[in-house]
């Protein structure tokens, strides 16, 4: 089973990297970019087939390591 965990910065947390990318896109002349926030994507392969178990394991992974919940939110998707 394949899964994806997406980690993004919480609203209000300053994202200097996103700002720099936003600036670069604007200087490239890419039209219509209002703002950029940078995040992380983890593609994870799971051994079992139980979706509930998988979801629980992924949530644990995100809470304990993949995200720093002081500053980041995460979303778990089973693909």
């Amino acid at each position: 089973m394949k899964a994806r965990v997406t980690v993004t910065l919480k609203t209000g947390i300053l994202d200097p990297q996103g700002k720099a990318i936003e600036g670069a896109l604007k200087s490239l002349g890419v039209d219509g970019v209002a703002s950029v926030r940078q995040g992380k994507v983890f593609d994870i392969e799971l051994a079992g087939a139980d979706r509930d178990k998988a979801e629980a394991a992924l949530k644990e992974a995100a809470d304990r390591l993949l995200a720093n919940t002081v500053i980041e939110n995460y979303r778990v998707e089973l693909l």
Partner: protein
Amino acid sequence: MKAAILVFPGINRERDMARALKLISGHEPAMVWHAETSLPAGTDLVVVPGGFSYGDYLRCGAIAARAPIMDAVRGYAAKGGLVLGVCNGFQILCESGLLPGVLMRNAGLRFICHDVHLRVERSDTPFTRGYNAGQVIRVPVAHGEGNYEADEETLKRLEGEGRVLYRYCSPQGEVDEAANINGAAHSIAGIVNDAGNVLGMMPHPENHVEDIMGCTDGRGLFAGLVAHLDRAA
């Protein structure tokens, strides 16, 4: 003072730290590998040194914070044991939950590697008793992610409880935007936990302890710890 220095893959300031501790305390510190599950008996001080544990993968300090030895450090700190984290060590302590907040990318996005001035906010703690309150010291920094951030409530608590021990300042001791090298909230360079026995700081006091380094302002931190432990003994 029997110090234990934690060693993680990618750490590179552990020998500077060991040299400074030996010089000032007279005792060779123990080097403790991250896969260990206990600290040497009789440890007076645990040091989490600087460097780039696990290449800063995922987030600075995130992977080291989950190493087996960190459970032992949590237990040691819960019993009141002294813990000092410098640079990556500060990041590791925040990631491990021993200190609140997080160290974000420097506001100017650049790696900063030069001397800075710090104002010592108070002298009545184990980590600052070698200095006077309000004293300005000069120590180096070397980091890309030293921009301390925490939510408003945490910052209010840190300030209200006098837990900010070191702040970036001008050579004259003024805390202002210009001296706040990395954009840290409240110009925070170093904080302690609520019990006051765990300090995390971005600058490297261990790199200003000998005349050959051009400055010895960092000695006070270690000398203060030695004095604190001598008095407690």
